[in-house]
């Protein structure tokens, strides 16, 4: 996937005035970490996690890691 394509077009980083683009993000929990592509600000690196992601896939991964 082209990591420079703008995503979530409605969302701008308010500080940098730039639209978010998909980029490599390090996600970590309970000593495990892995890389995923998430929308982030190309200027300051602020990473956006949507509610759907937080309560869906991310929650599933959290729970799987918790029970390991």
């Amino acid at each position, binding site marked *: 996937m082209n990591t420079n394509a703008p995503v979530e*077009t*409605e*969302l*701008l*980083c*308010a*500080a940098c005035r730039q639209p*978010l683009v998909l*980029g*490599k*993000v*390090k*996600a*970590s*929990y309970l000593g495990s970490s892995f*890389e*995923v592509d*998430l929308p*982030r600000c190309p200027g*300051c*690196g*602020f*990473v*956006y*996690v949507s*509610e759907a992601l*937080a*309560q869906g896939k*991310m*929650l599933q*991964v*959290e*729970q*799987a890691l*918790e*029970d*390991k």
Partner: protein
Amino acid sequence: MDGQQVRIWESRCIEESPPACAAACPVHVDARGLAELLAKGDFKAAQALFCRFIPFPNIIGHLCDHPCESVCRRAEAGEAIRIHALERAVVSSSLAASPFRRGRATERKRVAVVGAGLSGLTAAADLIVKGHEVAVFESGLQLFARLRGDPRLPSAAIDADLARFDNTGIVFHCGERPDITALAKEFDAVYLGLGAQAVPDLAVLVDLTPDGRIAVDALTYASRHPKIFAGGSHRYGSTPHTYSPITSLQDGRCAALSIDRLLQGASLTANREGQGSQSTRLHVNLARHAPSAAIVPADPDNGYTPAEAQAEATRCFPCHCRECVRSCPYLEHYGGYPKRYIREIYNNETIVMGARKANRMIDSCMLCGLCAEVCPEKLSMGDVCLSAREGMVGKGKMPVSHHDFALRDLAYSRSDAFTLTRHQPGFKQSAVVFYPGCQLAASSPEQVERVYAHLCATIDDGVGLMLGCCGAPAHWAGRADLFAETHAEFSAAWQSLGRPLVLTACSSCYRMIADHLPEVPVESLWPVLARGKLPGEATAAQNSRMALAIHDPCTTRHEPAIQDAVRHLLDRCGTKTTELDGPQLTSCCGFGGLAQFANREIADKALDRRIGQSNSDYLTYCAMCRDNFARRDKRAVHVLDLLFPDGDDPAARPDPGFSRRQENRGRLKRSLLRELWNEAMEEPTDAIRLVISPQVQADLERKLILTDDLRQVLRHAERTGQRLLNGKTGRFVASHRPLRITYWVEYAIDADSGCYVIHGAYSHRMDVEAAS
């Protein structure tokens, strides 16, 4: 968890004990399973099940002397299930039974069977299935000669059963009287099913009974001769009246087991406790079943039609205990019963690799004790789950997320924001100390103040006050360390007041102190109030036409003095009350064991079931129960709402919710210090003013996000300028991770008022940062 304790718990759940019918059957035919299949109309599966137990289903289906029926528990509610008639209907539906499949013995041996009756041919069939070679010797000209004349048994049924031997390699020698001594030399083992006659000439080989039959061991059917086994009517000495087909079949089966063990070099006697007809420990609650009479077949000679059999099978209970499962939505939720759960819970702790699948299950029990109350063996799953929690937490293997919120709430209640320890104003000592607990303070701080004023006015020699948390959440979370810390704090505060008698308003506080702090004298507030003068303003209830249904908090289950005191108080107020299931069988509101944090779904199921028991408004004496009812829109009052009334309809008071609960505690402390101890106390003002709609507030409650968490995010966004702007809606999205949890808030700033209008919030525990 202690392995030995686990085994004791496991052995106390008797749900896996067989039903009386199967236990009494000499070969333990699963009549319960059979009836369940027939009740569904599945004759094919029923026949397959019957054939798993019975080598000659058509013969037994027609002739069994059915000892099972005389112990069937249905007889205690109407008439016994006609199990044998059901079996007959099963075999009548189809005679064909699948052929025996020769097994593969590691060492194939040769066995001679003398006598082709039920015992001999059962032994032959079982040994073939175990993989041995079998030769059958029968002096008559036909197999099953004895049964052939029986008018109840069509010869086609016999032939269908014998067809099961097709292609098994068995050899039949009919019309032959073999020399047993020679057989014992030639074969690896010999089974004798010789019929009831005496055999004096075998005295050279085996011991004989006084009436000249072969003496065999009752468990193994072994004779004195190491290779010779005997059984069937020869053993039990039948006359035509005492002939028992199923006993003969059992003899053949047990002897075959011994022979196979002999041929494998295994112990003949080990693990045979379950052999033969037995009684059972399985408990059946007969009160659940209305009596019913057996179905009578329209044509008695031909037995049940399939429809009649299905109707009769439907009368089988079927026998199960599961009393606890029926009473507890938590136990019901996981689809099993305690014996199985205990095994899963123990494996969950001891497993080395792989997912610990039972973690959430362990944390979902309300620790309410209802299961032990209804269990015939008084098994408490609460004890099991609490011990498992302590074990898992001790190993660092329990997910922190289950109890994180509740334990942060506990931390708040232990903090300076809430804790307070004082003698009554104007006193230097305390005869008693009032300990309202963190939840009453959270639910209705005004009532704490009123009760305290009442106690001060009615008790001489000083009523101290202690605000804090008893540590119940730490205990329920299995956090022994944290529980000990809260105890130490409690103890220190109590000692600083001169070790007075502690009066608790919350039954969980009462439990924790009574069960864990033996040096602290404790009494519940309710007996104390019941003994004294009623507060002047006490009322019957706003709506005295309708009786209030009493919900006793589960932590008072075994406290009749407290239960009675509350009823006495209600009586004195003139309140009409009614009982739900009575105090011993009360159930949990979902807060117990912190279940509502670890598993909201199950806790709410339990709560809703309780709510569904009556349309009356509920009366309780635990603030948490009251507020949980309110949260699910059940009208409920706290007994204090009657003793110290305030406002018109206390049953309609909403659940304050978690944010307000914390605020209320802080507010209570400040108000007391201001009003009673004349200390200057400012109410905090926050520059960040929030506007939250009721829908958004309810959503935040569900997600366990406090308004304080929102404020932290907003302050962080203000300070750093870090936030996203949605160009379309003009709303901001900001996040903050104070510790372990990232909170996200979507908000707008109202241009006129400067208020923050909250549109939503959510959280996650995983940490994300841009990879460099």
